[in-house]
């Protein structure tokens, strides 16, 4: 059918789609980087609320 022919409109929209795609990709990378930094710096590693601190076995996680 005649749907195969590409209209100039599609080319105009391609720029927009690529832009949005790059933004989303960048956002995923940023969230990943922030997560790694927070874990490495220990900012968000808190004792589990249901496990009392003194019962945590020594050397756990090593």
């Amino acid at each position: 059918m005649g749907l195969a022919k590409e209209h100039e409109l599609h080319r105009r929209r391609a720029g927009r789609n690529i832009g949005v795609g790059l933004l989303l990709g960048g956002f995923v990378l940023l969230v990943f980087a922030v997560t790694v930094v927070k874990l490495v710096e220990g900012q968000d590693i808190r004792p589990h609320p249901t496990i009392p601190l003194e019962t945590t076995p020594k050397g756990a996680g090593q």
Partner: protein
Amino acid sequence: MTDTTTINANAPEARFGDYVVLLKPRVMSLVVFTAAVGMLVAPGHVHPVIAFAAVLFIAIGGGASGALNMWYDADIDRLMRRTRARPVPDGRVTPGEALALGLWLSGFSVVMLGLVTNWVAAALLAFTIFFYAVVYTMWLKRSTPQNIVIGGAAGAFPPMIGWAAATGTISVESVLMFLLIFLWTPPHFWALSLYMNDDYTRAGVPMLTVTHGRRTARRQILAYTLILAPAAIALGLTSVGGAVYLAASIVLNLAFVAGAVQIVGRTEAEAEADRYRAERRFFRLSLLYLFLHFVALMVEAGVHRLVGG
């Protein structure tokens, strides 16, 4: 079975860049710069990745309020030479799209800043967006000649947000950084409106130059410059200041006050004769004034780090 969609291929359609323009990239650059300095001069260490993310989300929040402003102001933007090519008045972006982008990015930036840094910074960002979009754009801009004075607060929050992102608090240093931009805004914009008066008159925006005349605007420029000077210099006496900042601030304030005195002394006939040369020079000086104050703060932060560690 038929399933067709009719598209008018010749209708104006937004490109990616049009959505970027909605976020007011030039205002954004000021937001990025002052927020980054606010974070940099704050005590303690912020990881570069966290700092980058925080400044990015503050900038997106600022951009979101810009999109909301363009959505609401499309009717008067259409009447002003400076703004009639903006995406909404030009028809490339629909008002609904601008509103949706502004609202979504507002929520997104506030939540992300809260998650990446802390909720004090996020609350300040939320308040800034509300202040610019609702208090300034929807309420004050069209109702009072003091619009610039109170609306200037929105532009003054970024260094305070940057400071809060690093420390989780509000302190005398961050309040003085706020005051520096807040008190700088009126003389900066009124100098511009002295030679852009026609645009505001056409749009019916009650700029001080339109409602009270240029004579009053000239006097108000000097008044605000005189209040600004002690606030700017006082910042040099806090923990973020020092000899470099104080020296720079004193020189810049002397030049700024001198420029304002010259503006007050001029009549409209004199200004029109040389096409507002002194007013244009004062406007350019105001840009340099703010930029160099924040550069001096950055230099001080570097000096403090060298001496301290």
